[in-house]
């Protein structure tokens, strides 16, 4: 009997508390930038695609909802020919973001994805690629990678010595 009264008292107390829920969608919650919502593909500071199609996001994905195909442009810069995320399978665990060596794939605080048809939850590269660098404004993988791509010849990246002169035997 006493416990029932105690429980009623708790309920009564909560009646006068401030509401925790918000009136979505009229009212939008404020989420931290590291919230794990919809996945995007970002660009590097110079506006080029960051993704180099290394397949690490795909392998780390516990529900196997990422598939892509690598290709490269005429200067040898790798990029995904197509990139597909099946959000109807995604569990927003963020492993892909952790695995990404180029900070291309990022999870955003945008969470309100709902569709009536599952196929609409399948996002292709055109839906994923945004025009900015996302959470990491400065990082550019090719500045440190050590391979030559357009505009960045051998020895021109960070911490690189000029290419070895193959015609010399001088010490």
């Amino acid at each position: 009997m006493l416990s029932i009264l105690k429980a009623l008292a708790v309920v009564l107390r909560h009646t006068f508390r401030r509401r925790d829920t918000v009136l979505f969608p009229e009212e939008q919650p404020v989420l931290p930038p590291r919230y794990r919502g919809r996945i995007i593909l970002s660009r590097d500071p110079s506006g080029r695609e960051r993704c180099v199609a290394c397949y690490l996001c795909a392998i780390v994905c516990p529900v196997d909802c990422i598939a892509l195909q690598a290709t490269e442009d005429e200067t040898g810069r790798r990029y995904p020919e197509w990139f597909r995320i099946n959000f109807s399978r995604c569990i927003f665990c963020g492993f892909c973001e952790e695995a990404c060596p180029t900070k291309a794939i990022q999870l955003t605080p945008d969470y309100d994805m709902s569709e009536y048809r599952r196929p609409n939850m399948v996002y292709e590269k055109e839906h994923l690629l945004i025009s900015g660098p996302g959470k990491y404004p400065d990082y550019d993988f090719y500045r440190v990678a050590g391979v030559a791509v357009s505009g960045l010849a051998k020895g021109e990246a960070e911490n690189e010595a000029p290419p070895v002169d193959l015609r010399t035997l001088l010490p």
Partner: protein
Amino acid sequence: MPTIYIDNEAFEVPEGQNLLAACLALGFDIPYFCWHPGMGSVGACRQCAIKKFKDEHDSKGEIVMACLTPADEGVRISIDDPEARAFRAAVAEWLMASHPHDCPVCDEGGECHLQDMTVMAGHAHRRYRFTKRTFPNQDLGPFVNHEMNRCIQCYRCVRFYSDYAGGDDLVAMGTRNQVYFGSHKDGKLDSEFSGNLVEVCPTGVFTDKTFRRHYTRKWDLQTAPSVCVHCGLGCNVFPGERYGRLRCIRNRYNADVNGYFLCDRGRFGYEFVNADTRLREADPPDAVAAMIEIIIGARKNGGRVIGIGSPRASLESNFALRKLVGRDSFFVGTAGHEQRLIDTAWLMLKEGPSRSPSLRDLEQADAMLVLGEDVTNTAPMLDYSLRQWLRRRPNPERLGLGIPEWNDAALGEIFHEVPSHLHIATVYETKLDKIAAQTYHAAPHDLARLGFAVAHLIDSRAPAVNDLPKDIEDHARSIAGAFETAARPIVVSGVSCGSQQVMRAAANVAWSLHARAGAAELCFVVPECNSLGMALIGGRPLEEAFAEAADPGIELAIIIENDLYRRAAKESMDRFLRLCRHVVTIDHTVHATARASEMRLPAATYVESTGTLVSNEGRAQRYYRAMAPQGEARASWEWLRDVSEAAGGWNAQDPEGSAGRRHRVAGQSESEQDGRVADPSGAERDQAFIDLLAAEMSKDIPFFAPLPEVAPPASSRVKGMRIPRESPRFSGRTAIYADKTVFEPKPPVDSESPLADSMEGFEGEAPAPLIPRYWSPGWNSPQAVIRFQTRAGGSLRGGNIGIRLIEPARVGKVSHFLEVPPAFAVRPEGVLVVPSHHIFGSEELSVLSPGVAGCAPEPYLGVGLDTVNSLVVGEGDPVLLKAEDFELILPVKIMPSLPDGVVALPVGLPGLNGMFPPLSAQVTRAPEAEPPNPEQRPKRTDGHV
């Protein structure tokens, strides 16, 4: 078996090994870079440091390199010793100091020995904060990509390339920390084995350029054990598939055949599977129904239905065709001249006393005669084996020095001092000539005479050769001398120079040696992946089918996996196709024959189907489907099975044709879709069809008796599970098809093999013929194969792959061939046209791959200096080649080694089909050719012909 102590635990290891190989085979992890099981030890990288103790009381020990320390009786070592571990971590750190940060864009990533070893050595954090060394890259042609920044200077590439593969255009250059591995100039690497650099290089310096265009990580590839189809040697491969396309070919270790390596034709010729030339749908769409109707009609009305098989189709497909049409109506799919040669080869192997050696056996030989065969171009891995033999031939001097087999650096020093016993007699110069003791270039008749002369010198019962020139006599004497002292002599010949006499001469040499040494071996090179299997099945030559088309007439001709325009002259083929009332071609590629046929059915290629091939050694090997076929394509034997079911079973002429009734299942394909292996009508079909065929073959043809044992039956399981074709890390399952359907489709079920198109299944070590990839925890690179072997470079733990079908006959008395051909005489009325072969271009399927096609030569006519002088032509000038049934204008290629009166025509090149050298022809200046400047004409520099 010596006992060694590793961290105070006793282990027995095989005799004559170094500690690194011994420890790896025992399952210990020791990181290494410069050691390679196929190439021995040099001690260059200092990575495999371990601690060695004097005795059980020694607690201090000393650090030694495991790869250079013999695993002798009582050796005490420690792998786990803190000092040794620190040493290894430090070495890995030095090697990594300038290694770039590019794993995400490196094609080696995920199958990288450097990644594996760095993790194994325990180096995780980079402390080096200065600038990294960079190198310029080179363009090494269409097959190999070069990224020198990744190099760790282990020297494996140049050791493989120049010491083992015999190439001379990839070298180490520069000094100190700037050693550069590359060529003296940009351009395609010369060696036929350059593709092995991709697997030999422990990092991503050399990667597969054809793979780069459709790159996929190793863990995403669906793979299955398979056998290469681009020549007759039957090398083992792993084809890798992703998203329905074949992505790459990787080596599959087979101790008896190709070991750790593959040739470039086998490795890069795979793209025909993805080519636009593929036939994907039946054409016309109702072709099968029409075909069934024709067969039923023909059976009722007594119309003739014939089948034309193919030496590039599996045993199963050929046999199913023979079953469908009946033995009398089955044709082998090669013209008589070619079939005679292959039949000669297998009859000699079957009835003669000489064994056919495997590629591994060839490496153990100590004297060799290559007669009439350009092995570098017709059977490239045989060239590689010959080169290994030359490196490793046992010699008393070396044994006296006490240098173990694996000590590559020390052996390399004495290698040049040992005389070679490789004798090469071919029509024109081959790449192996450089390493031969003596060479001889002559017309096929004269090559045969040399062989007969050698045989006579060894065994006087063999016929003597009269009127042999003095120098040839001496040459024969020196070959005979080398052979008589050899413990394991081998004669290599083949069908490629088109001469039966040469093959007989080779047999005579081997057989005469058999009488004395008792262990002479005889190796015949055959042109296609199942040439020998086709000979074992047997059938009538193509010409008889052509004759039957005219009289009594043919209602339906079924041609499987064969472009007959490559086998017979165009006129006779045109006439044949015109005369047959109906023609069906079942093939995976649209070629001239398919285009000219009335109906086409799409066949699956070797990566999309399961079957068995017989290599030139007589080894039957099963290949498994690595990917599900696209479109309507199916294995030829599946088409033939369905047709026979619908048409009322196998041909009634065949008394044993019971399989047709036993396997009959209504709605076969539906039941497969359902994934039920045992189909609803269960009791009737207790075996997979491929096993039924094998059982039938083993009953029908005595040589196929062991065939059911070539691989585990399709119903076999390991611990109740199938073997998965996909790795446990296979990614993207729920996204690959999401653009078409979000309901993930069920993977296709393979009722004809114990493998599954899935990540799920038995994860341990499968039986050797079923191992779909080499992977072991911590070992992602191809080096993981060590975890599947009994010892480094030894056989697989699950047994060897393939079964030898032909063993030498036990004959008391050797009967030699007695007919010695007359010497070749230059004929005033014309020249002898002999075939020349090219690794890139001569083979039908590989040349459909863009990379290989780019390396194929343009059609040419190879002429010797006599023709150059008599016609006054220079390199590239057009000449007219006029034979009995064709005329061709071809540019001249000067081949100074060609004997007088002989010209060489490259066979099989696109545009040169339907010509079958050896034949006689006239060569004249092409009508419109202008006379070249006489000063530019090459002069005969040597008297050698």
